[in-house]
């Protein structure tokens, strides 16, 4: 059950490393034609040091680093698979996302809003994350709005 008291809850801090194979298959699964997400040589041809991570992986990275999708969703619902969805995603990139970099992630529940939706009551829980690499360079900030139907 998502309660307004969740606002300010700190998530477990953690690390995550995107491996070459995962970035490659992610690009395949999302029909991404940019081969800098698959091959070092293609990334180098556009001035990057090596294979890049698809930007759409940024939410997966923060979820995995802070315990995985089930742990993330357990903050807001005991049975999230019966009625939860991603409602919004905001990302500010400060440095390239490189394959092989270990990313350190800290996060918190930054907002809990209860609203009346077109099909009934719903709760919007915003998770906010900051991501740095091992040297402390700021890589990106992300906010994800998770929507719980029926005011769970």
């Amino acid at each position, binding site marked *: 059950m998502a309660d307004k008291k969740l606002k300010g809850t700190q998530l477990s801090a953690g690390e995550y490393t995107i491996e070459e194979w*995962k970035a490659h*298959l*992610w690009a*395949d*699964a*999302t*029909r*991404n*034609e*940019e081969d*800098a*997400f698959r091959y070092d040589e293609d990334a180098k041809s*556009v*001035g*990057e040091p090596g294979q*890049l991570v*698809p*930007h*759409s*992986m940024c*939410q*997966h990275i923060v979820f995995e680093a802070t315990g*995985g*999708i*089930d742990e993330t969703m357990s903050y807001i619902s005991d049975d999230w*698979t019966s009625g939860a*969805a*991603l*409602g*919004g*995603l*905001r*990302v*500010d*990139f400060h440095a*390239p*996302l490189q394959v092989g970099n270990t990313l350190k992630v800290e996060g918190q529940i930054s907002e809990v809003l209860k609203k009346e939706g077109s099909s009934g009551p719903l709760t919007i829980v915003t998770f906010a994350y900051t991501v740095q690499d091992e040297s402390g360079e700021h890589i990106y900030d992300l906010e994800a709005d998770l929507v719980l139907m029926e005011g769970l």
Partner: protein
Amino acid sequence: MQFEHLSSGDEFNVKTFEKLRGDDMRLLAALLEDPYPPHFNERRAKELGYPDLLNQGPANCSYLVQTVIEKLNSPSDIRSFDIRFHDMVFAGETVTATATVEETRTEDSEGIVDLSIALEKEDGTVAVDGTATAMFPLE
């Protein structure tokens, strides 16, 4: 594409993704370790009244981001995006991602382009929309 040639209202890019594949959704579910059945299990999807497998949010996000990065010198030149999910997308559907120039400006010797982005289904329903900002080197 050159920054100096961009102006407000210009079509930045359009990309169509024909007949989204259920196998892509299954692969993405495995990569995500996503236990939500409609992303990989047709029987469960149909029990929920869906016409086919449900596409994942990160996939719909990817289609929009691709519309931006395809025109940049490097994919890393995208600086931000802000998107909202409005409607579900299913296997077998065709979606079109568009990016339109909203504003151009220079900051710290870089060209900055603000874009509106949208992912539309064949019936015109906007499944996802939002904004993105990208950087171009100045001539």
